[in-house]
């Protein structure tokens, strides 16, 4: 393992593996909705993910995640929004948090457990918004009829969870 990863500690290897694999798996989750991604798209996202692991602060991550989001909007998300979409959202958030933790320092840096716990908690909190948004979508627009209604609902839910997150952030002044 060390020969493959050079001087990277195990935590950094795990973070970088997440940065590459999570966007690819988010694409592959489209197969659960009946729309598997094209091979070239998978390879493109994997290549962007690999570039992202070398430069965690660069825009490769934004492009990789953006490609996945747009593909979902154009493909499986259009036909069958459901659990597969939530799975893709979770994988995208996981990739984002992994990239964020990897960008804290050089690749030789160990991953601090306190920071890892903090960000796993935050990611879980942020992810709560996805099922809420999905629920609003399904309830307000069963026939994909009034986009204004579900968009307003989503905006309200987004605002509410943002406020809740702000309150959570204000309370967590003590390190865990």
């Amino acid at each position: 393992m060390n020969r493959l990863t050079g001087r990277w500690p195990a935590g950094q290897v795990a973070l970088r593996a997440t940065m590459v694999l999570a966007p690819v798996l988010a694409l592959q989750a489209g197969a659960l909705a009946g729309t598997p991604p094209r091979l070239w798209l998978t390879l493109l996202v994997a290549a962007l993910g690999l570039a992202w692991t070398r430069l965690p602060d660069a825009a490769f991550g934004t492009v990789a995640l953006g490609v996945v989001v747009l593909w979902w909007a154009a493909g499986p998300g259009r036909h069958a929004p459901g659990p597969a979409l939530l799975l893709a959202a979770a994988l995208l958030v996981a990739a984002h948090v992994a990239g964020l933790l990897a960008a804290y320092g050089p690749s030789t840096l160990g991953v601090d457990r306190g920071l890892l716990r903090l960000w796993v908690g935050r990611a879980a909190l942020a992810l709560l918004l996805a099922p809420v948004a999905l629920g609003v979508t399904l309830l307000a627009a069963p026939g994909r009829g009034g986009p204004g209604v579900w968009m307003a609902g989503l905006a309200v839910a987004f605002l509410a969870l943002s406020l809740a997150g702000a309150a959570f952030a204000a309370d967590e002044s003590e390190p865990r």
Partner: protein
Amino acid sequence: MTAWRTTGALGRALALAALGLAAGVLLGEPALVVLTAPFGVFAALGLLRRPTGRPVLRTRLDHVVLHEGQGTRSHLVVGDPAGIEQVTRVVGPVPYVALHPAGGALSRRVDPADPVLASVEVSPRRWGRRALGVETVAVTSAWAGYRAGPVTLVVDELEALPVRAPFDSRAEAPTPVGLVGAHRSRRLGDGTDLAAIRPFHPGDRLRRVNWRVSLRTGDLHVVTSRAEEDAGFLLLVDALADHGRSGGVDGAASSLDVTVRAAAALAEHHVRTGDRVGLRVLGGTGATLRPGAGRRHLRVLQSRLAHLHAEEPRHLTADKVQLGVPPGTVVVVLSPMLSELVGAVTGTLVRRGLPVLVVDTLPPGVPPLVGEGTDPAVAALAWRMRLLEREEVLARLAGTGCPVVAWRGPGTLDEVLRRLSRRGPQVRTR
């Protein structure tokens, strides 16, 4: 002091949230909003928790003077920790300095009430001045929205004194010539060691009268004793070259390691017993320290030793070396005895009738210093010849009555100091 800038993570979260909301509203695609809504949370909270002010970062060492092998902590301190959630600190590798965490790199969550952001344990593994060099530091605000740095900080310098090598000697100094001290002098005086019992002379103190002998002989007899005096030691340190590879305090020792540690141990022992100790370095820094006593003097001497480095000055010859050794001073030459200069200087001191002893500091089995492009076979042959010459120099010194001992810690000098004490005053020759 450095400004806060947005992080790549905040940019990513903002871009994805904006993409989701804008495209979702424009295209009426719910999947976009579902996928990107969590990024809106990251972006909103990252922006909301923007810190005010600029962090002023500096480093602080708990101790700047240590003995090799000891450890201290280097703290990263910020003026106002408010708004800082995470710190990354990377201390560059420094030769002969052990760092904990390994590699000197750490990333941790910050206690918002503690101005000490991160501490790294530092331990010099070899004597000398250890510049901890530069380190790179970055701090991140809550929700990873903003980052200050990375900035480069210059860390303080650490002075690593030679290790307190165990050394003790019960032998007397050969020629104590001071005023008060712990060594028995050849001179009679107010000491405790019995010298003789002799008939009373006018001027003798009455408390010195030995009544038992006086009654037996019928004449007054007094007890005479040896004076107790301090001695002078000059440590002549050879820093012309460093042979062998130093592995630090726990590893193999080079010749300069043995020399410096032996000199420090001898100085500490003799200062502790009240002797005056001076220092003269041949080569390297060329440091000179006049004989002195006391803990402050010892500290200065250890510092001079810690600043040594191997260097052979050009145009330095034996006749140019002025040691200014006072009569009666014991000269301890600490050298691997591979330089003609040291051999010549030692020979001159012996001929002056000074008590001189040589501590051989060449570690056994030391490989030769091979320059780049040198044939190893030729270097090995030259090294063998050099060692043969060294044996000849040592034998010649021993022939003139100058004892040569290898450094082996406690008791190294006992036997030779006793022999020098028993020996009468040396004849001065030219």
